[in-house]
């Protein structure tokens, strides 16, 4: 993959904000966006008048029940009379928002960008799950009565068959992430649980049980991203965006191998190349792989080349990915522990790396020294891969 990108400015992250992640929030979506945006501005010592451009990310409009959600979220996100972009690649959106902000700054078009991601899933009822019906092909898929969990279960089953992993090996990821989330003040589903708890929770679509899955969540997150010169005026400890990657896989998911996430691997190679990283498994110090399901973290660790294909599940057993392990993954607690307000969850992961690289993560700070970090998100029918590489 050749990335033909000529950058005018180096890009930094200088501030971050987040709301509590909740099953049901009283706040409207735009109020959630406002809270996160305000916190991010405050953390960078900026006000809205300093901001040149706004980038908004939100996943399917159907969750909030509002169409044109970018425009709807505009006022809370501080976008009035400013250049505003809304990006959307399903679950991949959370990492795609700072990627979009990156090219706003790297191109020289904007110097200071406010980056906001929001999702409110609670309005859809009896269960937001039903909304996912509309991502399936109406002619050859919907008549079968699919549920979104089917496709994850199919992918997990294929991974297990191809790689020899058992449900109890995969459940360790849920145990780890929910435990990590105990130290995250925004967390919705933080808990000390055991592998047995996961295996005994309700079977939804075998092999997926309730505790293998991240929860339905409301919440928002935000970042401030600026050019290098601006960043150096604002802070002594900017976090640099070294590389971005984003690719789209074929929508005909039933026509391809599901054990290895090629959709992510191509995006990761693009981001690493831009960042000058040749051996990610050695050079990356901390990672936030996208974990809406426990197997998905393993899948993504392999797609990000932090472990060889089919080996992540063995390493998780050895504690390799624990907060005090060799290569901590999801030290935040991830989507499994902190929660999954779709676009905001991906951005929460990037915010976590920002705090980790500034040694500001408090109890969540990983034990080893950190210099380089990677986060990813994934979206649609195993399609959109988004990757961001950061350094301090």
């Amino acid at each position, binding site marked *: 993959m050749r990335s033909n990108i000529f950058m005018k400015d180096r890009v930094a992250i200088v501030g971050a904000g987040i709301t509590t992640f909740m099953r049901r929030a009283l706040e409207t979506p735009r109020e959630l966006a406002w809270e996160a945006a305000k916190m991010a501005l405050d953390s960078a010592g900026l006000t809205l008048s300093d901001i040149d451009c706004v980038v908004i990310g939100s996943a399917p409009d159907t969750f909030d029940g509002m169409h044109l959600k970018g425009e709807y979220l505009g006022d809370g996100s501080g976008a009035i009379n400013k250049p505003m972009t809304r990006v959307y690649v399903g679950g991949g959106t959370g990492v795609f928002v700072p990627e979009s902000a990156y090219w706003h700054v790297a191109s020289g078009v904007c110097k200071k960008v406010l980056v906001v991601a929001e999702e409110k899933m609670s309005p859809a009822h009896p269960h937001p799950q039903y909304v996912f019906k509309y991502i399936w092909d109406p002619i*050859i898929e919907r008549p079968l009565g699919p549920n979104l969990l089917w496709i994850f279960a199919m992918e997990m*089953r294929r991974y297990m068959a191809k790689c020899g992993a058992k449900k109890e090996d995969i459940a360790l990821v849920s145990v780890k992430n929910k435990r990590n989330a105990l130290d995250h003040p925004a967390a919705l589903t933080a808990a000390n649980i055991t592998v047995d708890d996961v295996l005994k929770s309700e079977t939804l679509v075998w092999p997926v049980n309730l505790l293998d899955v991240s929860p339905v969540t*409301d919440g928002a997150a935000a970042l401030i991203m600026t050019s290098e010169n601006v960043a150096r005026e604002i802070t002594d400890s900017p976090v640099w965006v070294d590389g971005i990657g984003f690719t789209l896989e074929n929508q005909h998911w039933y026509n391809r191998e599901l054990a290895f996430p090629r959709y992510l691997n191509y995006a990761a190679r693009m981001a690493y190349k831009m960042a000058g990283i040749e051996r990610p498994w050695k050079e990356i110090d901390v990672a936030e792989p996208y974990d809406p399901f426990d197997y998905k973290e393993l899948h993504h660790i392999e797609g990000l080349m932090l472990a060889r294909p089919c080996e992540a599940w063995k390493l998780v057993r050895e504690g390799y990915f624990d907060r005090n392990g060799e290569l901590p993954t999801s030290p935040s607690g991830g989507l499994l522990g902190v929660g999954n307000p779709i676009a905001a969850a991906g951005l929460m992961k990037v915010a976590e790396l920002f705090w980790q690289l500034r040694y500001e993560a408090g109890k969540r700070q990983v034990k080893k020294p950190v210099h380089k970090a990677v986060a990813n998100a994934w979206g649609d029918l195993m399609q959109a891969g988004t990757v961001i590489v950061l350094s301090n």
Partner: protein
Amino acid sequence: MSSKINKLPGIKLKEKEMYSLIGLVEDMPQAKYDFAAGTTISKFLEGLKEGKILGRKCPKCGRIFVPPRSYCEWCHVATNEWIEVPQTGEIHTAVITYISTKREKIERPEVVGTIKLDVPGYRDGEYEFAGLFHKICVDPQDVISGKAIGMKVKVRWKPKEERKGNILDIECFEPL
């Protein structure tokens, strides 16, 4: 939220609280959609009605697409040949569903998955293959034990008079 900030914004509601909120408005979209199947899938569905699985071949790379497409997504050229493909294949992945589209518990769990069909034009072990997503009539225990993965299967058709030219004309894939 660096370590300095402990209290985050956000007011949590319990389920009961949410549904008794002042100003709560309930709304439901009343839009109804009729989807045209398109130029190639229409013909594919006609084939199902006649008990055939039809694929479409790319003149450039030779791949045969099932379900068929009017263009090759890799070469970006028009496909130009209809090929009737074998009704056999192997199970790529299979799962047991206990919930409906609306996430309600269903009484009889169902097995669904993807089938890699025995279609020529692909290299052995290639990432892509011709195949279908459908119901699979196997014992759920075989899905759990792993016996089902890689199992040889064939199409079980609905009786001819019940076929309507839609994807459900295939009842399921069953062991050979």
